[in-house]
């Protein structure tokens, strides 16, 4: 047998092996190219996706900001008190030693509970010259079922105050809580009922009915809601006695807090 290294067949095998090596190398290069291409596509896709995210967020911020900006020319009620950015109505003597801030929604059942329990006590304290009551209206319980009653009620209250003053606001406020429709099953008071209570509270001006029906202070109601949010109020009723949140919402709790604040 000849030297295997000189075997021509063996030489052919060598060539084949070389070809295989070259093919493998080419395949590896092709795979690397494909991987590079994939990587580029991923980077490109990621960049496009990131751009889409940024653009969508910016567009949303611009659109939603314009949707929430309130009309500066919107009607504002007369008779609001100082210090509430035009969203509060105050009753009681100016030299009263204690200030009680009330944040309420006319549709809120817990507010009615508070009014039933301590409302008359609070008003007696105001009449006695001990407290000044600052009413902050809120409107966040609008629904299709109650035909946006929270907004309609607060608008009507502003109409009453604007035409007949803060004391009429208080009377109207008491009437609405005494006749509060059920939050879950009620359909809100009708505009006719609101007009009737406004009249009962002393708002008899000729524009009162129209202003109630036309939601003339609708934009102002939105502003009032935002103001309460900016004041840090997140629940109703929120009762502040000289700025301190009242936790015991009973008549006794209110009286005790007012006494502590005035002494």
């Amino acid at each position, binding site marked *: 047998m000849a030297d295997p290294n000189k075997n021509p067949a063996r030489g052919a095998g060598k060539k084949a092996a070389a070809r295989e090596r070259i093919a493998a190398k080419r395949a590896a290069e092709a795979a690397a190219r494909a991987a590079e291409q994939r990587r580029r596509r991923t980077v490109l896709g990621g960049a496009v996706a990131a751009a889409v*995210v940024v653009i969508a967020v910016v567009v949303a911020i611009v659109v939603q900001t314009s949707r929430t900006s309130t009309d500066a020319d919107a009607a504002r009620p007369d008779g609001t008190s100082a210090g509430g950015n035009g969203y509060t109505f105050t009753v009681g003597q100016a030299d009263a030693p204690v200030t009680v801030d009330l944040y309420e929604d006319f549709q809120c*059942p817990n507010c009615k509970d508070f009014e039933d329990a301590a409302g008359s006590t609070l008003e007696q304290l105001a009449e006695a010259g001990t407290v000044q009551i600052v009413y902050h209206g809120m409107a966040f319980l609008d629904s299709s079922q109650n035909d946006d009653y929270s907004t309609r009620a607060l608008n009507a209250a502003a109409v009453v105050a604007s035409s007949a003053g803060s004391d009429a606001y208080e009377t109207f406020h008491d009437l609405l809580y005494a006749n509060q429709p059920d939050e879950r099953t009620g359909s809100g008071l009708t505009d006719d009922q609101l007009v009737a209570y406004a009249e009962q509270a002393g708002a008899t001006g000729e524009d009162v009915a129209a202003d109630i029906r036309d939601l003339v202070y609708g934009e102002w109601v939105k502003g009032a809601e*935002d103001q309460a949010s900016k004041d840090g109020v997140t629940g109703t009723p929120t009762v502040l006695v000289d700025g301190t949140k009242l936790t015991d919402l009973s008549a006794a709790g209110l009286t005790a807090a007012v006494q502590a604040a005035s002494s």
Partner: protein
Amino acid sequence: MSSDLVRPWLATAARLLLGGVLVVAGALKLPDPAEAVRAVRAYRLLPEAVVGPVAFGLPVLEILVGLALLVGVFVRTAAVAAAVLMVVFLAGVSSAWARGLQIDCGCFGGGGEVAAGQTAYPWEVVRDTALLLVALALARWPHSRLALSNRLEPVHG
């Protein structure tokens, strides 16, 4: 063996759950931007100038991350983003809870004011923690069935 068959389907389920929740949660915050602003403000964590952009931008982020998960593109990135969102939400809700604020998380629209005693912090924390774990698992094992990226970029092996 069987886990190799099951795991991609679990990842698909995770994608649909997480993506669905995020898209719904984001979409519900868009119709009433004023409410969204109040919901963010109610946490009392951000300066007033930042409240608006966060209230308007966050829902869009939720929707986009959710959509990526639903259709199955950039799944790992989206899962990480979802996990980050959940951590942010958990931090917000926990801090509101710890500070005794009476707010609704506003997670699915709404938010801000609630009547006394109507907070739901424990449930909100449990839900967000569960979603965080799902997002982390998906970030670890993002390969799933019925993903658009599988068609664009077949994964072998």
